[in-house]
Structure formats: C-alpha cells, structure tokens
C-alpha cells in the first residue's frame, strides 16, 4: 500500500490542498494500513467531506460518493435490478423456456450499480465517501455493516460480491443522532473540530495566497470571535475561505466596520445571527474613516 508513514500521508494531503492536523493524518494513515473504515464526526463545515476528497486526490483514487438522506433505501444505495431491460428480455425471448429466461434476467447485465456496489465492484481501488450517515435511519446503518466489515454485498439472486480491491471508506456524521454501537465498532473514530488560529490561517493562506498576511490574520481572528458566540450556524472553514476571497475582490486593506458589514453575509447566514454578530463583533472593529460619530 502507498502510505508509508504518518508524515507521508500528511504531506500528500497537504500537496492536494488539505492541511490535516496530527490526529486526522494519523487516522488517514491507519485507515489505509489497516483497511478499516473511518467515522469522522464534528460540527458542520470543518472539512469532513473535504478530507475524503483530499484522500481521493492524494492517493489518485476515484471518489465514489453516497449522499445520505432520510428515506434512503437499498435500491438507491446498493443496487437495483433494471426492470425495463428485464421486461424487454422476457418479451424479446418469447419462445425461450422459463428456465432460460429466469437464469438470464438475474444476471450482472441487468444490475444497476448504485454507489456502494460501484465501490465494491470497481476494478480500481476507490475512496468511498458515505456522507452524513446520521441522516439515515438505523435500518440503513444495519445494512451497511456487512459492507463495512467484510467489504462484500450479498445479492440474493447472484450471491456475494466481494471487493477485489480494498476501498478507503470514509463516513461522515454531524452528530445529529447517536450512531449504533455496531457501526462504531467497525470504524476508526476521528473527531474533527474547528482548527486553531495558526492552522486556519495556513488554510486560508493556502486557498487565497494573494491575501496579505496581516489581513488574513485579522480575518481569522474575527471569524474565531464569531464562532465563540452562540450562533445558529457558526461560520465554517469553507466560509472563511470564501470571505478571504471576497475581501480580495473588494480590495480591502483592513477589516473595518464598513467592510465587515458589507461582507458579513458571506459568513453569517441567519437573520438573528447577523444581528447578534453586528452587535457583538462589529462594534469591536475600528470605525470607518470618518463617519458621523456614534
């Protein structure tokens, strides 16, 4: 396998634009070495999904993504029989005996592969991202167990389909409900949190290199101040990057109150949040050059 050491994994991730902290790098490394799925939890917007994407880029593997939602079922996650084609087959072979047709229509040819099946059946090793697993119900989790521990799927009509290559599996969860013990037991666990100031600064600088250092630092400090408030939706890392780019476009040289109020909607997206942020953070910034005092 590719991964030689933790630092190698970390460097590879950094090369594709993902600055992993120590635990993230270590768990990514272990996932590749042990062939175990990784369960990533953390608040929204700390780069859980991005970690999977970066893994796929850094290892040169294709990314297969399954977005979970309430009511997701096997037919959309695993596989489905292509009934139209099956019908055609039945009608086309009108003279064939039952035995022939029966054996025929439950063949790989009539199978529609959904993401999980795709990941298992792929001849090339892939990265499988099961996004927001907490959105599904527990029954779906139970269905995943076979896949996660043995990397195989059982189709009643066909038998077992086993993975020929070991996929890297990343599951993400926003912790909106407790996942089952059985699922957790099969995974390595990684808790991603908002990065500390220096690392976020690095991330922002990586994605908006033209932004002057001092301004970037000030920006990250403001973002952290905003996160410390009790907001409905605290700004994510992606949003601080967006904000950095916005500041670039605006040609801002300093985050004063005016710039802040103009561009605030990039990072704060609830009306009540905006009010709170304007009230608590906006006033701390230097006022615009010469407004009527007040």
């Amino acid at each position, binding site marked *: 396998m590719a991964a030689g050491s933790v630092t190698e994994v970390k460097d590879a991730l950094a090369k594709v634009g993902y600055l992993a902290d*120590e635990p993230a790098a270590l768990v990514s490394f272990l996932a590749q070495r042990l062939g175990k799925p990784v*369960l990533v939890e953390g608040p929204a917007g700390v780069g859980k999904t991005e970690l999977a994407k970066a893994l796929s880029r850094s290892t040169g593997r294709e990314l297969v993504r399954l977005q979970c939602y309430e009511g997701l079922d096997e037919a959309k996650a695993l596989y489905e*029989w292509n009934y139209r084609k099956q019908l055609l087959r039945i009608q086309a072979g009108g003279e064939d005996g039952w035995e022939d047709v029966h054996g025929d*229509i439950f063949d790989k040819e009539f199978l529609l592969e959904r993401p999980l099946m795709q990941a298992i059946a792929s001849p090339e090793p892939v990265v499988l991202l099961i996004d927001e697993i907490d959105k599904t119900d527990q029954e779906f989790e139970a269905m995943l167990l076979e896949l996660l521990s043995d990397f195989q799927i059982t189709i009643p009509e066909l038998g077992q389909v086993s993975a020929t290559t070991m996929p890297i599996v990343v599951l993400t969860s926003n912790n909106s409900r407790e996942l089952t013990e059985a699922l*957790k*037991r099969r995974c390595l*666990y990684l808790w991603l949190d908002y990065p500390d100031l220096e690392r976020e600064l690095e991330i922002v600088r990586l994605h908006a290199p033209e932004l002057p250092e001092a301004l970037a630092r000030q920006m990250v400090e403001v973002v952290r101040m905003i996160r410390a408030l*009790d907001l*409905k939706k605290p700004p994510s890392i992606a949003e601080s990057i967006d904000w950095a780019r916005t500041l670039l476009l605006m040609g801002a040289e300093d985050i004063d109150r005016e710039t802040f109020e103009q561009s605030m909607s990039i990072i704060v997206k609830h009306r009540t949040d905006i009010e709170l942020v304007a009230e608590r953070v906006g006033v701390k910034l230097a006022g615009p050059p010469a407004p009527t005092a007040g």
Partner: protein
Amino acid sequence: MSPTPASPYGPKAEAGPPGLAAKLLGFCEELRGEGVAVGTSEILDAFAALEQVPWTSRDDFREALAATIAKSQEDRRLFELLFERWFFRAAEAEAVGRGIEETERRHEGGERLDIDELREQVRQAILDGNDAELRDLARLAIAAFGRQGEGSGVVGVDVQRIRRTLGLSAGTQAPAADGAAELPPIDREQLNAFERHLRRELERDLIERTSTLPPSRPLAELDRALPTNPTQDLAAVHRAVSQMKRRLATLGHEQRGRRKGRTIDVRRTMRASLETGGVPMHLRYKPKRPRRPEIYVLCDVSTSVTSASVFFLSVLHALHDSFRKLRSFVFIERISEVTEVFEHERDFRVIAQRISSEGGVADVSGYTDYGRVWLEFLAEISDELDPRSTVIVLGDARTNGREPHAKVFAQVSERAGRLFWLNPEPRLYWNYGDSVMAAYERYCDGAFECWTTRHLENFVNVVAGGVPSSD
C-alpha cells in the same frame, strides 16, 4: 502453548516492549469501569493500529489508541482523563516496584533561583505554549518554594500556593508596578497546563517519598457530569432535542390514513410484475412520507418547579431551533404564548428574562392552576389541534388544591395526536401532596420523569421505540 495457529485476525502483533499488552488491557479495563464500551474487537483494532505507529511517540501512540477505542466525543473526553492517569500511574508503579529513584538531586539550582526571574520564565513559556519548558519550570518552582516547610501535604493546596507565589492569574494582567511595558494576557488553557505539570510533579514527589501509590479512585461524578451551568448545558439539551426531532418526525404516522390517497409506485410495481411475467398483478404503493410534526409545548414556570424551569426553558430553546412548526406556551395561573420571544431572540439569558418580565402568567396568587390552564388552552388553541400535532407538557402537576379539570385535559389529549408529559419530580413523589399526576397520566401517551439531559434522552428513546411506557 502450541505454535500459534494462523489467526483469523492476521499475523500476531509484535509483542512490543515487555508488559505493554498487559498494561493496555488494564487500561481498557479501567475505561470499561468508567462506562466506555470497549469491546474485544476494539482492543484487537488497537493492537493492530499500534503495530503501525511507533509506540515511542507519545502523541501518535495516544491518537492511535483513541481512534480505535474512543468512539464518541464523550468517550474521548474520558479517554483523555484516564490515559494521563493510567500511564502515569503505570510508570510510577513500575518505578516503585523496581526501586528506581532519580538519584541526582532533583530540581538542582532551584534554591538559588530568583522568584522574579522564575516568574518571567514561566510567563514566557506560557506565552510560547512550550509544554516541555513548562514541565521543567514546574519542577524548578516546586524546588524553589514547594518545599518550604515540606508543603501542606495536600497536592491541590500546594499547587495553588505556588501559583499564587508566582503571581500568575489568567486573563489580562495588572500593569507591572514599576511602570514597565504592559504584560500580555495569560491564556487560561496554558495556565491550566502549568498547574497540571505542577500537580503531576508534586504527585511524583509524594509517590517517591512514600514509595506507594495512592489508591486509584473512579473519576469523580463531578468530572464526568455535564456542566450544570444552564448556558453550557444547552449544548447537551440541543443534542437530545435534535434526536427527538428525527424520532418524532418519523414516528406513528404510518398508521394513520392508511388506505386513503396512496399513490402507486410505478417502478416497484413493474419490478414486482416480473414475478408474474410482466403482468402487474400486485400493486406497489409509494411509502407515505411522514409529514412534519406540529408541536405544542406547555411549560410550567411557577415557583414549585423553579429548580427545573431553567432546564425546561433550555429544552424549549432547543426545540425552537429544531422545529419550524412549534408553538410554545408558559403558564402559572394563566397561559401565555411565548413563541415570538424564542423566534426573535437567540441569547438564552435574555429569553429567560423576557419571559419572566413579559409572560404575564401570574395572576394574583402566583400559584399554578392547571385546571384553568387547560380551559384556556382548549379555548384558544384546540381548533388547531389535529392528529398530526404533538403536545408536550412540562410541569409537576401540582395544582395547589384547585380543580384539576382532568376532563378538559382529556379533551386536549383526544384532539391532539400524541400527548407527552415530562415531570421534573421523581416518580416517587407523584400523587403525593397536591400532585394530581394520576388524574392526568391516564390521558397521556406517556409520562416521564425529566430533570436532566439523561432523562430527556430516555424520553427520546422511549418515544423512538414507539412503546409508550404507560398507557
């Protein structure tokens, strides 16, 4: 033993340094003792993971263990607490067992050190966040004045005494007396780290002096319990409530209006028709999507539930974050709708204040009047109740001897789809004194004791199981 057969879990792990396996198992045992679910498969994973990382690197070692053993944030917190303690104790026990002592005089030169100089060094190390440096300084500090009169013998007291002598406190620093440059503020986290080092070194001293380990205690409940400060507790309440949201959203609806207005799922019908040679003999219907629940929450804010009302209000607060169609009411003698307040205010303290000032729920006596509350609720709201709505009552059912109007309550219960009662008193106290819980309980889909987040989670679980605990 016979030569190792090929294990189903792959080749056997390298033994590692002697005794490590036993130590790890002991550590897992300790974690189990604190309620972390560590299964055999987790332990096997941990060993497999440790093969991949150098066990000499403390951070890698810890992270690899944590990734395989601690599978939730709460577990992780316990893991950190125990990891520190266990491996520290393990190392010390080993040292005591083999009679190893630091032979050269510890903390050399500590006596000669100037306090001011030491203070500056600690300050600098705290600013730099240099952990190793902090540890060395902690040892120096102990040497410098930890020993005067051999300390108090109580580690915690000594730690604080040394910290005070050094004049260190978190937050902005008072300007230096001699008018020197303003001192940068000290980070609370870093100061805590310094105190931890002090504590650790003092403990080590103590162990060395007495050649015994103090008995290991289970983590105090204090360490483990969620912080009881209402604003901090909010996070936990929010989590429980967002679970509740999912559960309520998908519960009990499949039973209602079964035959009416079902739509045929063409895809699945065709698929099923294959069994009958392409003739659609069995119709397949689209599953009914659960409709959004409508929730009515009634919250008692009278003095008899004072201790619980902060908790109740935070539950309300969290509910408002999760549900769109939610109307909340507070009551004492009369009922008053506070949906507005929650929708326009984020800050929990402001909400609590506004409710107490604007609620207008106390009439004359300030004693709860449940009967009147039901009458008012029925009169104002009942037209809007339908089988989709869920009513949740938070209260102690203490009517102060007034007419409970259980019949009216029954009417409310009949109109609403589901009705749950969360009571902040232990079940033991229900129906004692002026509590008329029994009169109401028979009309509830479920009545629960509820004054901590754990109860709230239990409520969510029971609701999720679809089996009301009482009927």
